[in-house]
């Protein structure tokens, strides 16, 4: 059984120039993301954290994209489901927990923003807000700066399918297209905007075709396959760095959970639909790929689970015990502190 399957499964990552270690690293990031997200739900249901907005089902898209970018060089303008990209860009599970618990040490906001509102200058992660799609023009602005300062980096902006209807998507991508800027717009199409399904949301036959409105290439990839996403983002980055301008990438994914811990998706989608998605769960399918190729052995897998569990336990323990922000800091940083420079 095992053998016959591994015969059937062809090695696709070698063709992309990825080693077995690379794909194991991708898998580990995906798994850590999933487990950390699951822990957040537990903490929410047990009343320890107020809010969870989940990336479950989008780990392949996020880690595949992140793996194609250069840490410390490229910039990221994320959205609220991007916990996977955060981990991939070097934010630790502990730091994410500190953010979830709204503790003073949270590097994203010092406990000022809701979970999922990321930003970490030292890691090239641009601070984000709640209103969707505002990050798209910001990413274009980073790309404009790259051009003006002749710096060889790319900026990746992520957003959801519904968010591609906002004016800022249109204005931002048109600006990038006119000035041929090194920016990648990465849409994680999970086919819902809270309760609104894609057909009530997006009038185009898919999201990738919208690239033509901005004179840039647009590709649709299977967001459940980290290798397909890696390839698309790597190619877009090459084009950008070679001065060939911006790209739009649509990764078709699934939102395995409700929109957030405040949502009940039973109100607008069926059990069947949900179960169907779960059968293509990207974490399982990628694990199967690695297992079939004999790269992810039972031992490796158990070790990884153990390691990750410990990492998350320690992160949780630390964050839960960490101090809240000092109420006396409420007025800090409205403007630049006086006496600085």
């Amino acid at each position, binding site marked *: 059984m095992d053998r016959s399957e591994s015969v059937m499964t062809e090695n696709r990552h070698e063709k992309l120039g990825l080693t077995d270690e690379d794909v194991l690293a991708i898998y580990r990031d995906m798994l850590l993301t999933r487990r950390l997200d699951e822990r957040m739900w537990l903490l929410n249901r047990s009343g320890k954290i107020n809010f969870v907005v989940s990336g479950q089902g989008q780990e392949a898209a996020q880690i595949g994209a992140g793996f194609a970018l250069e840490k410390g060089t490229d910039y990221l303008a994320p959205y609220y489901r991007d916990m996977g990209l955060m981990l991939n860009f070097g934010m630790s599970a502990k730091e994410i927990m500190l953010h979830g618990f*709204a503790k003073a040490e949270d590097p994203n*906001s010092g406990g*000022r923003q809701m979970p999922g509102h990321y930003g970490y200058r030292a890691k090239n992660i641009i601070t984000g807000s709640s209103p969707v799609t505002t990050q798209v023009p910001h990413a274009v602005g980073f790309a404009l700066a790259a051009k003006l300062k002749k710096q060889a980096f790319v900026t990746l902006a992520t957003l959801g399918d519904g968010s591609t209807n906002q*004016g800022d998507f249109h204005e931002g991508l048109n600006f990038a297209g006119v000035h041929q800027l090194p920016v990648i717009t990465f849409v994680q199409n999970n086919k819902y905007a809270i*309760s609104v399904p894609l057909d009530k*949301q997006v009038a185009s036959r898919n999201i990738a075709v919208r690239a033509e409105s901005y004179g840039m290439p647009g590709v649709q990839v299977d967001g459940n396959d980290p290798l397909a996403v890696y390839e698309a983002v790597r190619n877009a980055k090459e084009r950008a760095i070679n001065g060939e301008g911006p790209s739009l990438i649509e990764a078709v994914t699934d939102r395995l959970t409700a929109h957030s811990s405040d949502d009940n998706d039973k109100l607008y989608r069926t059990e069947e639909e949900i179960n169907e998605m779960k059968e293509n769960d990207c974490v399982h399918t990628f694990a199967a790929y690695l297992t079939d190729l004999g790269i992810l052995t039972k031992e490796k897998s158990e070790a990884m689970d153990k390691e990750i569990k410990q990492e998350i336990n320690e992160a949780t323990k630390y964050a839960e015990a960490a101090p809240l922000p000092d109420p006396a800091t*409420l007025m800090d940083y409205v403007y630049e502190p006086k006496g600085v420079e």
Partner: protein
Amino acid sequence: MAETTYIQAITQAMQEELKKDENVFVLGEDVGAKGGVFRATDGLFDEFGTDRVIDTPLTESAIAGVGIGAAMYGMRPVAEMQFVDFILPAVNQIVSEAAKIRYRSNNDWHCPITIRAPYGGGVSGALYHSQSLEAMFSNQPGLKIVMPSSPYDAKGLLKAAIRDNDPVLFLEHKRAYRFLKEEIPEEEYVLPIGEAAVKREGSDVTVITYGLNVHLAEQAAENLAKEDIDVHLLDLRTVYPLDQSAIIQAASKTGKVLLVTEDNKEGSVIGEVAAIIAEHCLFELDAPVERLAGPDVPAMPYAANLEKEFMVDETKIEQAIRSLALF
């Protein structure tokens, strides 16, 4: 008479107007099958169907702009902005268009749209799910801004807004949705937009506020009654344009005025209230006008203790009234 929550009163108002007038329809994000993220449109989709209760794409400017177009044609759209924080992409449509259509066309066209949005904090909503943005629209003639403080007012004023032939911004405090309950009449009623309401007659200190803070001020007033501090309480109800004569009367009544808002202080609507008092009541005042408001930070932080620090509450109001009484 039935116990009704603030949000049920809002749902009832929409349900009754949808039933009464076929030109009324509801549009917004997730208002359909889901019934809205706060469930304000709960049941309306089943009762009135996809044509009358429309799930829109995630586009506030289009929700306002398409609504404005339909309103000019003769419909009475009730548009929901999911949170008032997310009304900002629609500011151009609301301020350049809705507010100016009647005036610029010299009364040839008008725009009977109602735009509903939940505002306010104390719900762990952090910077972008807690804001009070009424001040941003309180300098735009052509608009009316209603902020009800009770289930009874919410129902009567929302029905008035939907029937109004000019654009109305209807702001609902999201913490009031399930927190405030009261018995309201079974029979239909409508309340006048533009009129403040005296919630409590008193002789020592006048408190002028709106929205959820009216409830907190009532609590504070009751506690202070035990100390023989007699509070006069005015609920603005419509924060733009303001009910000047009601403000002047209320301020003159006691000569000591406390203005309360959850918004950050500088530039909030209570500044305009203070200005009206400074223009009209100087010689009736026995103490400087006091303002109790949120701190001047961009918006409410998420961490529970920071949020608490930000929020105006019963105790803060009580203390402010007490020190004015002793002035």
